[in-house]
């Protein structure tokens, strides 16, 4: 089993190495197919583990070697394959394989596609090590690695300076979160003396240091800040919409389905810790809810098809954090999975649209694509219905569960979450209507070339669309396979079974009606009245505030970037000058002494003899007379 786990982990890495060194020589699509194969191998390996675990096998922990060993503090380099990590690996490698396949066609014309696939494989490798790591530090390697790959892939088309800036922004914002994560890791190491998940859980459940609530809360909060950075929550969310600068498969894989869920994964991994810090859980719930609402409102008015999906992702991640904050970890995991299905499908669909329109991303220049691209349309429609929470698609079940737990936990948050869901339904169908209905608004040139994408692109769409439709089956209320599967993780919890009473059915009804209202408004606005979003200059009022994303970027610019720049300039212009002047002063003094002293060495033997005698006098005086 150990070697299989290593195969799982290293297969994408080998793919990365081959692609990075020999990718160019592998023929036109060789790099792409190789990368896909590498991830498929991982997927198959994961499947073996998954079937084993589902059949009741014990989670396996693999210790490769001792990494750090200081006194009693020991960190081994190892991997943990339990229910949670294998589940995560399932959709990381599964959706990863599909997106790799999709990319073969999507990146067909890019001259650097071997590099693209190398990065993509490297990302999968790091994502796997993030998920599989048996302790926080191994996870941290993956955590940093996926951040790096995200940076590389956002800035993949590096010739555009805006894309480079977006990549840098993503990287730097993630650093802020990573600092929080590191601090959290340090506090945990100090408190419990171990970073291994299994031992950590056992120690915390055993009650050691459990009374130290202040520090536990501090650790949980620091870890949550790390999660905020990776999973794009307030206040560190602004990088994710900008990250859409990367190629669309990247947005689908990294910035929708996998990497951004790392924060949720981490919180779920350490749920025992978070359970001890109810204050932090409240913070998480509120942050999640407000992120969901805020991102949804911004998403209402965006015109870039990928930006809408990006804000939708932020919003959905917010909902997942809301569930985490309610202590309903398995619900969050459920939504992560369904979201991975339909959001990946939506992104790939948007990629298909962009592909067909030769890079056009502005929805104001689309429309009427339903006829030309039926498969893309149908799969995206299913996914949109799913994300809106329409019965019986995947999103309905997961979103409904989140709203249900928040209703039981905190009514205010339930209201916020519900409003966010209604808004989600609205902007998703705004996207659908603007893209696929009415008449085509682009140029004649584009219209002439409209076509359905090739099979390599539609196949992943169909698979993901199907999953988006039926994915909810894994956790139906009452008969939840997922909850049963994850039960060993939450063994310490006394699980109150959801009994479906009138309240629950009522909540489902409210959610569905809300979604239908959102869709209805969108229908009225964009189909009935055939409205179009205003051009950039004509946007005004509150819409302008939304369109400009609440001016958060500008606020950050003013509050953080400007002062830091000012401080840097101050240090450069004054402190640096002073310090450099001081240091250079020594250099100048030495220089001057040397310049003057040079004259002593004039080559005159007679003079040297004088100096020699004087030196002898000095030495013997010092040795014998200086008492």
């Amino acid at each position, binding site marked *: 089993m150990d070697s299989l786990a290593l195969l799982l982990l290293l297969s994408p890495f080998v793919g990365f190495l081959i692609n990075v060194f020999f990718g160019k020589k592998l023929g036109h699509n060789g790099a792409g197919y190789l990368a896909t194969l590498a991830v498929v191998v991982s997927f198959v390996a994961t499947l073996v583990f998954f079937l084993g675990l589902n059949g009741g096998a014990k989670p396996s922990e693999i210790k490769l070697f001792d990494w750090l060993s200081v006194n009693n503090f020991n960190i081994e380099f190892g991997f943990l394959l339990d229910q949670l990590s294998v589940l995560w690996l399932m959709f990381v490698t599964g959706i990863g394989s599909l997106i790799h396949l999709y990319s073969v066609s999507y990146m067909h014309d890019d001259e650097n596609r071997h590099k693209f696939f190398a990065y993509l494989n490297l990302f999968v490798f790091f994502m796997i090590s993030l998920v599989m790591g048996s302790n926080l530090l191994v996870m941290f390697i993956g955590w940093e690695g996926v951040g790096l790959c995200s940076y590389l892939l956002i800035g993949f088309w590096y010739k555009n300076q805006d894309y480079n800036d977006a990549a840098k922004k993503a990287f730097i914002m993630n650093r802020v979160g990573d600092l929080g994560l590191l601090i959290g890791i340090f506090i945990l190491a100090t408190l419990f003396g171990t970073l291994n998940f299994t031992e950590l859980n056992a120690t915390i459940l055993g009650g050691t240091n459990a009374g130290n609530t202040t520090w536990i809360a501090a650790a949980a909060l620091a870890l949550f800040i790390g999660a905020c950075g990776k999973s794009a929550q307030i206040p560190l969310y602004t990088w994710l919409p900008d990250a859409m600068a990367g190629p669309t498969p990247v947005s689908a894989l990294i910035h929708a389905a996998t990497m951004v869920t790392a924060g949720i994964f981490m919180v779920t991994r350490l749920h025992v810790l978070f359970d001890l810090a109810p204050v932090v859980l409240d913070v998480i719930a509120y942050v999640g809810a407000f992120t969901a609402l805020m991102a949804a409102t911004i998403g209402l008015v965006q015109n870039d098809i990928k930006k809408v999906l990006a804000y939708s992702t932020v919003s959905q991640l917010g909902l997942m954090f809301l569930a985490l904050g309610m202590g309903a970890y398995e619900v969050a995991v459920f939504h992560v999975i369904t979201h991975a299905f339909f959001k990946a499908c939506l992104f790939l669909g948007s990629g298909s649209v962009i592909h067909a329109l030769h890079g056009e991303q502005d929805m104001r220049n689309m429309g009427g694509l339903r006829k030309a691209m039926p498969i893309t349309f149908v799969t995206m429609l299913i996914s949109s219905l799913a994300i809106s929470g329409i019965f019986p698609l995947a999103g309905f079940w997961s979103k409904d569960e989140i709203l249900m737990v928040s209703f039981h936990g905190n009514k205010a948050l339930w209201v916020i979450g519900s409003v966010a869901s209604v808004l989600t339904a609205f902007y998703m169908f705004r996207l659908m209507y603007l893209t696929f209905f009415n008449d085509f608004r682009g140029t004649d040139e584009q219209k002439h070339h409209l076509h359905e994408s090739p099979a390599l692109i539609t196949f992943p769409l169909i698979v993901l669309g199907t999953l988006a439709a039926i994915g909810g089956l894994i956790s139906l209320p009452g008969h939840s396979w997922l909850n049963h599967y994850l039960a060993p993780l939450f063994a310490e919890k006394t699980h109150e079974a959801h009994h479906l009473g009138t309240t629950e059915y009522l909540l489902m009804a409210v959610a569905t009606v809300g979604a239908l209202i959102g869709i209805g408004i969108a229908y009225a606005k964009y189909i009935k009245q055939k409205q179009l979003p205003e051009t950039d200059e004509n946007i005004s009022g509150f819409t302008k505030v939304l369109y400009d994303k609440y001016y958060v970027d500008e606020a950050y610019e003013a509050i953080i970037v400007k002062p830091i720049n000012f401080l840097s300039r101050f240090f450069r212009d004054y402190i640096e000058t002073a310090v450099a002047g001081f240091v250079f002063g020594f250099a100048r003094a030495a220089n001057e002494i040397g310049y003057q002293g040079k004259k002593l*060495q*004039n*080559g*005159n*033997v*007679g003079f*040297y*003899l*004088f100096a020699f*005698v004087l030196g002898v006098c000095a030495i013997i005086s010092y040795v014998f007379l200086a008492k």
Partner: protein
Amino acid sequence: MGNVLNQIGIENYIFLAVILFCIGVFGVLYRRNAIIVFMSIEIMLNAVNLLFVAFSTYHQDAQGQIFVFFSMAVAAAEVAVGLAIVVSIFRNLGSIDIDNLKNLKG
């Protein structure tokens, strides 16, 4: 004759040796002629030898005198090589004025 130091005292030999040594140093500094400089160095060596012998007598130990032998051997070698150098300087520069030797610098 045996107890010469009883009559004279070791300090007088020390005085003599010091003065002789300083005369040697003075000669090195005072003259420009390399040959005379060499002679001054010989005077210094002799001053040291004299002091060795005086203390050898004082301690009634032969080792001081043995050391004088070695110092003489070194002096002989030094003079041989030194004078050869002086000769080659004279051949190259046409003089043995040490103030003309101004190339000893980096």
